[in-house]
C-alpha cells in the first residue's frame, strides 16, 4: 500500500462522536474494564505484528531455503496414527 495522506474519508476506521466515546468510556470504568484506544492492529488469531528483528529473520529465512535435519528426522518418524 502506497503512502498517502489520511483524511476523514480515507481513515480506515468508523469514527464515533466524542459524546459516544465518553459514554462508552464512563460505562467501562464503572464496570471495572480497562479501556485502551489505539489505531494499531492488536495481535489475534488471524493476524499479528512482528518486531523488525523478527521480521528480518523471517524474510531472510524465506529467501534462503535450507535442509532441516531435525525436520527430516520428524518426517521419517513412525506416526502413531493409522
Amino acid at each position, binding site marked *: 500500500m502506497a503512502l498517502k495522506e489520511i483524511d476523514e474519508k480515507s481513515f480506515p476506521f468508523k469514527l464515533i462522536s466524542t459524546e459516544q466515546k465518553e459514554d462508552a468510556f464512563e460505562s467501562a470504568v464503572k464496570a471495572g474494564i480497562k479501556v485502551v484506544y489505539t489505531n494499531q492492529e492488536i495481535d489475534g488469531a488471524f493476524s*499479528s505484528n512482528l518486531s523488525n528483528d523478527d521480521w528480518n529473520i523471517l524474510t531472510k529465512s524465506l529467501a534462503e531455503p535450507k535442509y532441516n535435519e531435525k525436520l*527430516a528426522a520428524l518426517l521419517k*518418524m513412525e506416526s502413531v496414527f493409522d
Partner: protein
Amino acid sequence: MKLEVISDAHNLDRFSCENITIDDFLKSEALVDNNELLSKTYVAVDNDKIVAFCTLILHSLKPEEKEFYLNVSSKRTIKQRIPALLIGQLAVDKNFKNKKIGASLIKKVIEYAIATSDYIHFPVIIVDADNEDLVSYYEKQGFTKFPDKRLRLFLPMADILKTKKAS
C-alpha cells in the same frame, strides 16, 4: 489411533491437558469455530477417547513498522504482509503424554501443508508454544524461535519442501 476432524460425535468433556485455557477452548470454542469455517480442529481418537488435538488457522504476519519500502534495484515492493499457517492449539491429554502423539500431530500438519502447497502457497508455518519447555520441544522438531516473540516459532515451507525432496 485415528485423526479426525472435530464433530458433534466426539466427547470433548473428558479431555484434560492440565491447561484450563486450552481445555476450555476445545470444549467450548473449537467445534463452533470449525463449523463457522474460521479454523479447523483435528482430534486424535483412541478407543473413542480424545487423546490430543490441534487447531489450524490461516494467519497473516506483518512488521510493526508502517513505512512503505521499495527495492530500487529490483523495482519490486517489499511485501507488507506474509500469509502463514498457524498451529493455534496443539495439546495432548495428560494421561497420553510421551507417546509421540504430539510429534505425530506436527508431522501430520506438515504433511497437510505439503499437500496443500500443490494448490495454494503460504510461505511459513508458525506455532505459539504455551511455555518455554514447549519452545524447546518445537525446536527439536525443526522450528526456529523468534528472538522477540519468544513463545512463537516458525518453519518456512521452502525448508519443508527442500527437506522432503532430499529425504
